[in-house]
Every structure is written in structure tokens, then in C-alpha cells.
């Protein structure tokens, strides 16, 4: 028997073409995807562990400090990486990036006239522990305007990138915050099938707060699972 990965559940994923999100119109593949029978090429994938982590990579309130603390509301974001069978995924690299508290990205292409924070980069990474847990300390990102349509604003979000155990489990997504009134107006969030949108919203959890320091949010990831297949 060989272990391969369960198929992508297309009912939980956004489509390539979602015209309300205008950039999809010229960039979405138009032809039907060709199914691939998983081989070693698809059940393997890049392996990254603690050796690639900097000492402060999980703490975005400290990893780019130049002259003082970054401005904004400190938060903890924590949760677990699971597969769809509920199995924790240990030793998995997670990369994150986000805007600062004013809604400005460090990226030079971001021309939003909100202030940069000299003490905040907005990039971080960590590796899940033996129970698939991760934890970042950061600043709550601000909403920001973008050019998709008239008076368009992105809801506050943090970008996440996960490899999971194989090429097949690759996931890049965005985590949103509960109760954000901008969500209903955001074509990127709304491009997700309605019954799966809440999977992208973190939960405020008092137990994850650090008293007198930071509020706490929980966000879990669910990657494709494994299944056995007879070897030919």
C-alpha cells in the first residue's frame, strides 16, 4: 500500500474565476484542470524545520525593532494545523505576512498613504510543535483601501503560507477577524463558498490572551488528509 493524499475538496475552495475580484478576469485559468495521478512528485514536498527559523521569527512585535516598539494592538494568534481526518501536523513550517496597524504594507508597491512603522516588518514564521500547534505574537493589522472597485477596502487580515507534508497539501490563505463589517463587501473573502467562509475567520479566545499584554485569537488550518492506495 502507498499513502497518497485525498483530493482537493473543490466545494470548500474559491473558483479561479470570480469576476467581482477583478484581477481574476485575466489571470484565472480558463481550461479544465487535467487530473494528475499522484506519484512521488506529488506526495513529497519541501521539508523545512527549526533550522531555518530566526530567534524572533514568531514574534512580529520584536523581529524588526529598530528604535522602539511597533504601534498598535498586540495580539497572539495561535491554533493547530490538522489534516481533514483531524490528525495534527507536527513540524510544519508556517509563514505569515501582514499590514501594520495603520493598514500599510512594507512592500514598496503599496502606495496607500498610511504611515509605515519603523519598528514593524510584518513578516514571520514558525514551525508547529508535536501536537501541530503554532503561535505568533504580532500587531493587529489595519484595513486598507485597494483599487478593485469604487471605495474598496480589504478587511483586516493576516496572510498564511503552509507547505504541509507534501506538494499536494500546499496552502496559501488569509485569516480574518470576527465581526469585521468589511467582510461582506470584500470580493476575495466572498469568493469563498458561503458555507466555508467562516473557516477563514479567527475566534477571539480570552484564554489565549496574555493578561496586560496581548489579546488572543485562535485559527486552525485543515489540510488534505492521507489515504491508502494499493501499490501496483
Amino acid at each position, binding site marked *: 500500500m502507498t499513502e497518497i493524499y485525498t483530493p482537493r475538496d473543490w466545494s470548500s475552495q474559491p473558483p479561479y474565476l470570480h469576476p467581482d475580484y477583478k484581477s481574476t478576469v*485575466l489571470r484565472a485559468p*480558463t481550461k479544465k484542470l*487535467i487530473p494528475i495521478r499522484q506519484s512521488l512528485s506529488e506526495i513529497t514536498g519541501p521539508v523545512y524545520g527549526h533550522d531555518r527559523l530566526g530567534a524572533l521569527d514568531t514574534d512580529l512585535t520584536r523581529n524588526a525593532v529598530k528604535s522602539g516598539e511597533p504601534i498598535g494592538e498586540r495580539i497572539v494568534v495561535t491554533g493547530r494545523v490538522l489534516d481533514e481526518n483531524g490528525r495534527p501536523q507536527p513540524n510544519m513550517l508556517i509563514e505569515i505576512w501582514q499590514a501594520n496597524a495603520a493598514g500599510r504594507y512594507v512592500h*514598496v508597491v503599496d502606495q496607500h498613504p498610511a504611515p509605515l512603522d519603523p519598528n514593524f516588518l510584518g513578516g514571520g514564521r514558525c514551525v508547529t510543535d508535536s501536537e501541530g500547534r503554532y503561535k505568533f505574537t504580532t500587531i493587529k493589522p489595519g484595513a486598507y483601501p485597494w483599487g478593485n472597485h469604487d471605495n474598496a477596502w480589504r478587511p483586516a487580515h493576516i496572510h498564511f*503560507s503552509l507547505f504541509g507534508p507534501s506538494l499536494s497539501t500546499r*496552502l496559501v490563505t488569509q485569516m480574518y477577524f470576527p465581526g469585521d463589517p468589511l467582510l461582506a463587501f470584500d470580493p476575495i473573502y466572498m469568493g469563498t463558498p458561503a458555507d466555508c467562509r467562516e473557516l477563514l475567520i479567527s475566534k477571539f479566545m480570552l484564554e489565549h490572551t496574555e493578561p496586560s499584554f496581548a489579546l488572543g485569537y485562535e485559527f486552525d488550518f*485543515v489540510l488534505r488528509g492521507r489515504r491508502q492506495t494499493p501499490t501496483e
Partner: protein
Amino acid sequence: MSKLRQTPSQTVGPFFAYALTPEQYGYDFKSIADGNLIEGDVPGQRIRIEGRVLDGKGDLVPDAMIEIWQADGEGRYAHPADPRGSNVAFKGFGRMGTGTDPESRFIFDTIKPGSVDGTQAPHINVTIFMRGLLLHAYTRIYFSDEAAANTRDPVLASVPAERRNTLIAVRNETPAGAVYRLDIRMQGADETVFFDV
């Protein structure tokens, strides 16, 4: 047991560079990977792979991120699921944004992979991310000088014959060595073949 729903994908957006490809773009943060996959004196044929990403109007995409995953020169992956395991110091992963080259190219310096399992032709697995892609796209790069192996490859065989050339990088001999070129076209008559992996 009822399954958990898979977390929906969302676009990588336009502002990934300072976290995912920071050194390439000049940000003060270490990169985990870049366009150079060659570490030390890893055995294998040195090659360069370069290409561009084009949208449905034929315009260059200057804000895509391309990841490649490949076997070593003997066709072994540096991953526990490969029972043979890589026997050389070759990780096999590269990542590059298209935002720093004047021609919006991705450029990977690597070694030519061997045949993975005796049935597949040498190939490189490619994952494409960009603003406007809510879900990453998977494709493969095959090699123009592997015609015989390509003919026997089961994945290429599953692709309509008239679309196979969208997956085959063309070898050019240059003073600096072998350069394989292949553009990724998101749409149009020559739309690249994307796979449901």
C-alpha cells in the same frame, strides 16, 4: 468519522515579497529559499530555467511567485516519502518572484532532475501564486532534449497532444551553460496546462 472541511485558499496578493522572497527583493529578513537550488558541489548537470508569466492579454505578470520542487540528478526527492531518499545535499525547492527582473522573468539555477520512478520523464513541479489567483495553480516543466522519455511519460500522455508543448521547456546552449526557457500563460490559445494535483 466525519471529515473536517479543508481550509479555503485565498490569494497570495501583491505584497508577499518581504516575507516569502525577502532577500530577492532587498528586505531585511532571511529567505528560506530563492532562485538558486545549488548547494556546494552537488552532483548533476547544472542548468538554468527561466520564463515569464503572461496574463490573458499577453501582458507580463510582474507580481507572481513561482515555486519549484524537483528530484535530484538521480531522480530522488529529499523527503521521507521517497523510500530511496536524496543521497546528495540537494533540497530541491526554489522560490522566486517575478518582480525584480527587468523582463519579469523567474530564473532558477539548479540541476537537471533524473527520472523519478523509471516511468516518468525528468520534470520539475511548479506551483504558481499571484494576485488574482484565489487558488494556486500547479503545472510541470519537462525538457525538450528528453523527447524519448517524454513520449513514454504517463502525465504528458494524459494531456491532449496539441497542448503538450506548453509543458516542455526549450533547451538553449549559451556560453554560461544550458538554459531552458518556458513561459507560463494563464489564458489564451496557448494556455499552459494546469493540473488538478
